[in-house]
């Protein structure tokens, strides 16, 4: 008689349960709440750019009007309006950095929506490392896309300190 060394049990693979879009779980995790808030704010930015056209923006270039300093952000709102209307050349003429800055908002919006959908479809899929990677990517993207504005800010700061 052959001794039984191990017993092989074949069990059917358990299907991973998915709650689908459970909107009650929005209240469950703070990460989902933060993502939802940012997605909503970014959506408002796009709507704002769509509602206002090149010549009727309510945000004034306060810095230029009061000090005469022309920052790299001048004409950014008008350029955003052109980008959402797919007039990329006009947007570049209005502000050469606008496409770079707008890409940050667009990538962030896609990322936020993607993360919301992922967390709703697969609860507990978002771990601490996911959040850490998200922060790292977002921070790198912010520095890259806003680099001309960040550089200008720190130049002004250095002038002010001297």
């Amino acid at each position, binding site marked *: 008689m052959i001794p039984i060394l191990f017993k092989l049990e074949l069990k059917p693979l358990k299907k991973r349960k998915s709650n689908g879009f459970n909107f009650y779980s929005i209240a469950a995790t703070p990460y989902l709440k933060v993502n939802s*808030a940012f997605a909503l704010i970014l959506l408002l930015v796009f709507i704002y750019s769509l509602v206002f056209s090149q010549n009727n923006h309510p945000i004034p270039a306060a810095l230029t009007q*009061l*000090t*005469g*300093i022309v920052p790299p952000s*001048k004409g*950014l709102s008008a350029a955003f309006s052109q980008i959402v209307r797919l007039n990329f050349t006009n947007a570049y003429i209005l502000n050469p950095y606008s496409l770079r800055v707008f890409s940050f908002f667009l990538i962030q919006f896609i990322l936020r929506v993607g993360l919301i959908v992922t967390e709703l479809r697969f609860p507990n899929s978002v771990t601490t490392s996911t959040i850490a990677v998200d922060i790292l990517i977002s921070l790198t993207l912010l520095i890259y896309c*806003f680099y001309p504005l960040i550089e200008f*800010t720190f130049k002004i*700061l250095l002038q002010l300190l001297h």
Partner: protein
Amino acid sequence: MNVEVKTTAGQAMGIVGIVLAVISLILAFIPCIGFVALLPAALALIFSIISIIQATNGYGSKGLGIGALIVSVLSIFLAVMWLTIISGGFSVLKDLERHPEKIEIFGKELEKELNDANVQIRIETDSMVKTLRQLEGESDSIKVITIKKNKVSKGDDSQGARITIDTDSVQIRIEATEKKKK
């Protein structure tokens, strides 16, 4: 074995704090409206402090509160910087309001400088609105017709340049001569 169980104390305030802090940081890096970041940054600071206190008392996680606190402090610093610059601009404007003769002195100095450099700027236009539209790129593009750098009629010791910008409705002619120092 002691198992530390974290509660949700301070979580709501932390979420509001981090959202406001990130918005204020992005606003603070936009120079035109950088000073506006002061309001959301101040609110983020308040919410983050409340979050940390609530989390400490209720054994909650302090991560969100601390994150919001750091970002909001950085935003406040940058917003205050923009506010300082803008208030500097305000004070210059107020100073000019009090002493309008300064504008006159500046105008005279500029006129003298322009006369010394022998620069003439002449703008001929029949429609300012059309011109502005052209400049904004809504209409035909501006064509620079001539750029000449040659010796001008005032003797051989002078050099001059002439730029003529011509559109449908505006002609801008800039002529400049420079006298050679003997």
